[in-house]
């Protein structure tokens, strides 16, 4: 009896973070995803140690070599070491993913919060802007922007484009959340006590509105990584000298490479697949962990 009481007190006292982690831990797919993602992050940090060669060094005498002792995944059409490029490619994907999510959060949360909090004309203008950006044919627009700004490809342009076109989901989510919180009693009382807009937004509204946004942001990191790979595959992404999984895959545009040299295009494809998959696993686990309502559904 006594023990049980202690247990309940502990339950109440544990922070929301601990609770979320406790739920997350029980989701096997989410844990596997987190594990894989950590490995990929580790690979991108330790790239200089893991790479056996300089990823950009051209070995003139040995291009398109099949895997061998010297080059464990062979060499590409320019005579560069495929394994080293694969390892360094994780850096591009992770950088693009993280930057894009940061931009989604910054732009999406700002626009959604302002629209919901101030309402009226502000809401109208910001939401119509969101509608317009949402109606952009994403990939086509990204291609146009990259082609216009930087014919040769530039990782900053790519990250900027992906970030600028993808924040709409976050804006709509946060707007919905804040609209439902705005007139809650605790916010009203904060207002009555004379709290500033700034304090109400940052102290009372945003912390309670962030859960679905975090989930959406995690999932959109996967989308950002895929988009970068697609742009680079289409020759409109990061510069060709930079090792990116997408541009490595564009080797398969040559029929000979596709047919006879799968080591050139299968590994980067699998790398993109594994990173995106693990992020999706984590995002899905987060959704279940942050949204106890859905958790209950699962037990029905």
């Amino acid at each position, binding site marked *: 009896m006594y023990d049980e009481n202690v247990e309940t007190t502990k339950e109440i006292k544990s922070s929301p973070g601990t609770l979320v982690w406790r739920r997350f831990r029980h989701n096997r797919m989410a844990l596997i995803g987190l594990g894989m993602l950590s490995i990929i992050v580790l690979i991108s940090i330790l790239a200089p140690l893991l790479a056996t060669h300089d990823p950009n060094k051209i070995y003139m005498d040995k291009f398109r070599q099949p895997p061998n002792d010297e080059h464990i995944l062979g060499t590409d059409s320019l005579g560069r070491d495929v394994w080293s490029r694969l390892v360094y490619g994780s850096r591009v994907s992770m950088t693009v993913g993280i930057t894009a999510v940061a931009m989604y959060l910054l732009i999406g949360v700002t626009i959604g919060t302002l629209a919901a909090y101030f309402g009226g004309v502000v809401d109208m203008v910001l939401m119509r802007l969101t509608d*317009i950006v949402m*109606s952009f044919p*994403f990939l*086509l*627009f990204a291609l146009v922007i990259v082609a216009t700004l930087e014919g040769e490809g530039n990782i900053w342009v790519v990250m900027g484009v992906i970030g600028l076109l993808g924040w709409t989901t976050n804006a709509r989510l946060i707007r919905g959340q804040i609209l439902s919180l705005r007139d809650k009693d605790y916010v009203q009382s904060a207002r009555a006590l004379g709290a500033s807009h700034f304090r109400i937004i940052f102290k009372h509204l945003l912390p309670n509105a962030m859960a679905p946004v975090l989930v959406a942001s995690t999932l959109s990191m996967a989308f950002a990584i*895929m988009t970068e790979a697609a742009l680079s595959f289409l020759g409109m992404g990061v510069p060709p000298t930079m090792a990116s999984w997408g541009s490595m*895959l564009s080797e398969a545009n040559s029929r000979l490479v596709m047919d006879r040299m799968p080591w050139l295009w299968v590994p980067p*494809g699998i790398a993109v697949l594994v990173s995106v998959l693990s992020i*999706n696993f984590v995002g899905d686990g987060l959704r279940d962990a942050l949204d106890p309502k859905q958790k209950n559904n699962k037990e029905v």
Partner: protein
Amino acid sequence: MRSYILQRFLLMIPILIGVSLFTFFLSRMAPGDPLMHYTDPDFTQEMREEMMEKMGLNKPIYVQYISWLREALKGNLGVSLRYRSETVVHLIREKISPTIALTLTSLILAVFIAIPIGIYSAVKQYSIGDYIFTLGSFLGISVPSFFLALGLIYIFSLKLRWFPMAGMQTIGSRGGGFIDILRHLVLPVTALTLMRLAAFVRYSRGAMLEVISQDYIRTARSKGVTEKIVIFKHALRNAAIPIVTMVGMSIARLFSGALIVETVFSWPGLGKLSYEAVLQRDYPVLMGTTLLVALMVVVGNMVADITYSLIDPQIRYD
């Protein structure tokens, strides 16, 4: 209700103007003049300027936009810079059927395969079948479209030699006709379907799960309605709302997928046309295709919203 639909229609106008403005100014910001790729190197400066003059390219950019808009409203989208004699409208008309054949087939296949799987997964939640489908749909949403397309070509075209790897018709075949086109359609449709399918399965499973946990389903069960009727009549009808929205909202993604799939498979459709227009700086064509795709996206979203409000009378718009 009627005023809601009207309001949605009116909203399309600023959205489409916004999209066209953005595309127009952006594409003109590119360094170099638009004719750079399309004139002989031995053109004299005067010949060039004369050409720019004739095409109205040396006027201020907003004047160019207004005259473009005026013509566009009359249904004239200009002439392609690349194919001098072709109008943009003609090019789009020529390329739209292959794209519709590709995307519509994939969309229909994806919806009709996904919904039964989604229902099965939701009803038999946590069964082995559910795990397999869930894992499969995770794989499906995580595989890059071009990698999937390349993989399909590698296996079914290069190794097994079952299907052709590119194009819409066998070159030189004198109209092998319908069957020939169909054979060329199989792989691109498979690629596009698998991608949409994965997203739709996840969505319809979620929608079904949400509905199944509702009180009225418990009521139906407890009053002795057979499981079959509970699922297909009570549950599915309500789960249909989010599923309809999902289909309407997926048009933008569908087109992005088509752009890549058409490029990889050399399928002569709008996606490939727009990609080439980007590469070749064929601005009039680019404006035309962007606007068309934006129009389809807006209409898709609108239809989704309106259907949503028709199916569910609880939703009110003010």
